[in-house]
């Protein structure tokens, strides 16, 4: 069983390292000693059955939850004690499995809020935000990055589900992150929308380091450089996609032994 791959000498310092991460909700150990090392530029998929603690892990990394134990080091700095806003300022951005936008605003205004949040202090009382090129241009760029530039003026409530999911990514991108934590970007999407999302994410690959939680195995195997399998809050394997596909323990725990020798794993549905 391969533990989190240790950095070889001469290899770049990991962008993110989590060690001994624990989080319990009452009697449920949602995160049970997670070790994670993400190299700069890699796309790491985290898979696991429902209730394996994947979203908890993202929330711990993003600072929305405080771990019971463990340490998170981002780009060489210990960020364990930092709250979510400070981590976002440091270059961590997350997306949500359940779309989390600003429904009263248009797509562009949503991106604008994200750009502005990243720009730091908002104690600017006079100049109209909506006409500020320092905000508008990066906001438009973020929309263009996810293919929503033509829908910029549309209120969020009028966007299709797939478009809202794209905007979800755009908000995270608008903060110019160095590490993107994506929580099931294809949740609730149709086949076509999922393919478009996979294309979008492969375009982002290399540009930004990504930790991807995903239930759609086709998407995972199409995108991931490496895969971590999480079961009961504990990583049981981290390896290249081909190796994970062959790993017997993984198959037993997650991919579903009942599929027999079938190469194509059963598609898990989001709860």
């Amino acid at each position, binding site marked *: 069983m391969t533990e989190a791959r240790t950095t070889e000498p001469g290899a770049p310092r990991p962008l993110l390292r989590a060690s001994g991460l624990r989080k319990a909700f009452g009697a449920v150990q949602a995160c049970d000693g997670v070790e994670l090392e993400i190299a700069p530029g890699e796309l790491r998929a985290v898979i696991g059955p429902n209730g394996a603690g994947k979203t908890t892990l993202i929330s711990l990394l*993003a600072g*929305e939850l405080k771990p019971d134990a463990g340490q998170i080091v981002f780009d060489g700095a210990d960020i364990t004690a930092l*709250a*979510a*806003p*400070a981590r*976002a*300022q440091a270059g961590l*951005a*997350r997306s*949500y499995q359940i779309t*989390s*936008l*600003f*429904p*009263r*605003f248009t797509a562009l205004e949503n991106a*604008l*809020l*994200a750009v*502005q*949040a*990243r*720009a*730091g202090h*908002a*104690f*600017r*009382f*006079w*100049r*109209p*935000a*909506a006409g*500020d090129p320092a*905000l508008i241009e990066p906001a438009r760029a973020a929309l263009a990055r996810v293919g929503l530039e033509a829908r910029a003026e549309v*209120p969020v*409530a009028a966007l299709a589900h797939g478009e809202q999911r794209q905007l979800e990514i755009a*908000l995270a991108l*608008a*903060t110019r992150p160095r590490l993107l934590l994506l929580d099931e970007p294809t949740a609730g999407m149709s086949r076509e929308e999922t393919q478009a999302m996979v294309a979008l994410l492969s375009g982002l690959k290399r540009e930004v380091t990504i930790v991807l939680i995903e239930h759609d195995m086709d998407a995972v195997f199409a995108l991931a450089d490496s895969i971590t399998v999480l079961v009961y809050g504990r990583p049981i394997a981290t390896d290249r996609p081909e190796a994970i596909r062959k790993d017997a323990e993984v198959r037993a725990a997650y991919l579903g032994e009942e599929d027999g020798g079938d190469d194509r794993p059963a598609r898990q549905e989001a709860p």
Partner: protein
Amino acid sequence: MQRSDLAALIGLLAFALFPALAWAGGLLWAVDLASRMLIYGLAALALNLILGYGGLVSFGHAAFVGAGAYVVGILSFHSFMGGGFLGLPGSGSGFLVFPLAMLVSGLLALAIGALSLKTSGLYFIMITLAFAQMIYYLFISLPDYGGEDGLSLWARSDFGPLDIGNDVVFFYLCLGLVLAFTLLKRRLVGARFGWTLMGLRDNPRRMQALGTAGFRYQLAAFTLSGAVAGLAGALLANQTEFVSPSFLSWHLSGELLVIVILGGIGTLYGPLAGAVAFLLLEFLLREVTEHWQLFLGPILILVVLYARRGLWGLVEGRRRD
């Protein structure tokens, strides 16, 4: 927005000409009522900054109105009776007591906000109410300043050449201050500060995840809101030439909430429309019956049911949400 601004401009014009019209119609006494509308409107505009744009339901804004009123009342008292308050000599100068009223109310809001904003939702409502009631009982227990009976002003504040003892001059002072704050708020909510407030109102979790530490912006808005409510309190003390603990009571906090809801939560000019409608209804219904609140209730229910963005929502017409 165009339509809304146009309606506001017409409203401003109507107010600006009101004393002349009232004089022509022999209704000069109504100028006093109009001043009261502007004062309540100013307090409601202040409340709307945090209620409408910040999504923070403060049920204790009377504390800031009352504190502002008492600053004027107490300093006026000492300027005539001698002595001082906490080493501060009395003064009747409006140029001094008005900014001081804003400062005191602002600081009070800073302190109350710093503690209250650690909570949210129902707890925020209750804690702001609790703080306001504390201030209320504090002033009731000060016999030097009239206790429960309140304190009469010897004279309206002295603004040098501007004699606000004259009701018409006082009316224009109120109008000027309301206009100034409306314009300020208009810029404020359109600037980054306002966007941040609205973002925190609509999706605080996402705002945090995007890098906004919300507390400081909400506290800044709460403080500003308190300071302007204090200014309204200073005006109210001058209008009634009287300061009483009722300015600090939860009734006033509730009335301000009702005015904002009636006028339109989160609209720029709605709170002013709400204040005009509320005080006009109160005035008219009071003529008919002493149980005027019995009739005000159903009217409010109708507005809440059929005009979700309040009276100003009707003026603005359909909007995107």
